[in-house]
């Protein structure tokens, strides 16, 4: 298919008719530039939404309890609900195959002290799975493990900022800190993308907390990560089912939201998902409109160009050019111009997006705007096809004009 002579003819024709080549190229380049910018900015918006939820795992579910607001089975309103280890184990056994991670959470507030430095911090007693639910990033050492829980070890994992408060630049790992009179071994230091508050926390084993502080089996909250194999609808119905079961187990009215509720990330994800889907639909609509305008632009120019060249085609035919060779010449020229111009538009668009970068994140919620390879490849294919169509239809007509009529044209 590659024919150096034909390419030479095409380059000569493009080169000798620069104005019209540039004009037709400009239409396409501009359309693609707009398309790229539009798509990039929306993907930036989408990135902002995603990072807003990046603090916790995407599949997180939280079982939380307060006081009853409805009487049920002879029990009074205003009863305080307390989750216990038994509830934790019930969930674990009942829904084993629907759960990826599971952790209890007990909220405490303690003063942490190292040498002369002391401060009050929120402390959470959790299970090892908590690391994945909270997306805790271990910078040094390790997180809590099963052995810590079994042995009720007095170990602690502290946030980056606690380490900075108490230890400054000095190493903290392996040191002992005092928490409410008990000595804890620092086994890990973590950071968290959720912000400063999340990095001013400390984690200790659930069992240790239950033994030392109150000697009971109470827990404040159950955190779950549903099985990622579940789709959003299945995850939402799992959350609802869990809510019903726990209410019934704890003798709560089935509709008592304020006594026990399950906060399910799947629901938030579903809302964001459908919002983004609508946004993308709009972009695709507007973007294809822009592309179509570009294609119509180049088609018009091609029709004009071919009218202008009708006589030339007549001459070529009189000299022995076959109709197909004329069609190919025009189509190849058109595809060449659209592809090059489209590529330029695309590169310029991508470059502009990279210039924008994160500078619009604060005021306009546009984070890291960019276009994916799939979009780039798709747009390029659309361009080549449109160049093909824009060139083929008028060229076919021109090639079928009888040579004598073509020669008479001016």
């Amino acid at each position, binding site marked *: 298919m590659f024919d*150096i*002579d034909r390419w030479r003819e095409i380059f000569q*024709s493009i080169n*000798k008719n620069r104005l019209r080549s540039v004009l037709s190229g400009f239409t396409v380049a501009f359309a693609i530039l707009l398309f790229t910018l539009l798509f990039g900015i929306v993907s930036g918006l989408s990135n902002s939404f995603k990072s807003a939820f990046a603090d916790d795992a995407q599949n997180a579910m939280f079982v939380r309890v307060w006081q009853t607001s409805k009487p049920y089975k002879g029990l009074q309103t205003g009863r305080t609900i307390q989750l216990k280890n038994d509830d934790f184990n019930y969930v674990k056994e009942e829904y084993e195959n629907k759960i990826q991670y599971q952790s209890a959470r007990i909220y405490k507030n303690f003063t942490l002290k190292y040498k002369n430095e002391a401060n009050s911090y929120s402390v959470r007693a959790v299970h090892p799975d908590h690391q994945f639910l909270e997306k805790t990033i271990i910078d040094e050492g390790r997180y809590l493990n099963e052995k810590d829980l079994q042995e009720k070890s007095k170990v602690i994992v502290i946030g980056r900022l606690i380490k900075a408060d108490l230890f400054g630049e000095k190493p903290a790992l392996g040191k002992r800190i005092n928490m409410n009179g008990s000595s804890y071994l620092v086994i890990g230091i973590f950071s968290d993308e959720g912000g400063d508050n999340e990095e001013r926390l400390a984690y200790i084993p659930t069992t240790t907390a239950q033994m030392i502080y109150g000697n009971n089996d109470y827990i404040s909250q159950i955190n779950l990560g549903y099985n990622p194999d579940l789709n959003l609808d299945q995850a939402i119905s799992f959350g609802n089912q869990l809510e019903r079961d726990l209410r019934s187990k704890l003798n709560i009215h089935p509709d008592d939201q304020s006594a026990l509720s399950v906060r399910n990330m799947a629901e938030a994800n579903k809302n964001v998902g459908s919002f983004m889907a609508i946004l993308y639909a709009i972009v695709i609509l507007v973007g294809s409109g822009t592309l179509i305008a570009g294609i119509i632009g180049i088609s018009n120019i091609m029709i004009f160009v071919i009218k202008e060249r009708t006589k030339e085609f007549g001459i*070529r035919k*009189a*000299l022995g050019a076959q109709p197909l060779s004329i069609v190919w010449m025009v189509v190849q020229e058109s595809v060449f111009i659209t592809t090059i111009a489209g590529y330029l538009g695309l590169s310029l668009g991508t470059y502009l997006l990279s210039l924008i970068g994160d500078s619009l994140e604060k005021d306009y919620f546009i984070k890291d705007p960019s276009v994916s390879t799939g979009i780039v490849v798709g747009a390029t294919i659309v361009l080549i096809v449109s160049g093909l169509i824009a060139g083929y239809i008028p060229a076919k007509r021109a090639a079928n004009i009888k040579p004598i009529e073509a020669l008479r044209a001016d």
Partner: protein
Amino acid sequence: MIRIEKLHKSYPIGKESIHVLKGIDLHIKEGEFVSIMGSSGSGKSTLLNIVGLLDIHDEGNYYLNGELIKDMNEKKAAILRNKFLGFVFQSFNLISYKTALENVALPLYYKGVNRKERLEIAMEYLEKVGLKEWANHLPNELSGGQKQRVAIARALVTKPKVVLADEPTGALDSTTTDSVMDLLKDINNEGMTVFVITHEEEVAAQTKRIVRLKDGVIVSDELTKNTNSVSHV
């Protein structure tokens, strides 16, 4: 070389149709230098277009180089034109963005000759028409006579059987007309069949055989005093 029998051609104009050629019989042998004379509307251009495979006849037979021209499609016609025919037009019809050399080389491109060889052959023919020094000039840098000589070089470059010239001197002054006619005579003297359409008596007088056309029929067909060895049937 060219044999035409009872050729008819009509053009539709609205609902009517104009009968342009009304039964032409003509036989042109290899090596002849024939001119077709006639006023405008006599059908002479139509005849040339049919002979040149640029148009299709309605009735009658046309044999080019012994081959019956029938059911021509564009592709077949293009191949035959490239192989057997060379065209010289009144308005030169050079491609404006190509140099003289590239214009001459173009028919060879459609013949499938490679670039290097093409340009060599084209240069040879430009030299023959005395325009070697002008090879890299664009058509608008050439005079009318020079353009027509480039066109003649282009018509000859594929070594066709017949050169068809449609009012080749129509756009030229008398001096350049003579130089173009001299060139056509030279070509004919080398054995090429030349077929000229003109309405100028002086041009026709320089050919070897004059066919006069009026209202779509041949009214006379005679040899001129230029005829030496070649005779017609």
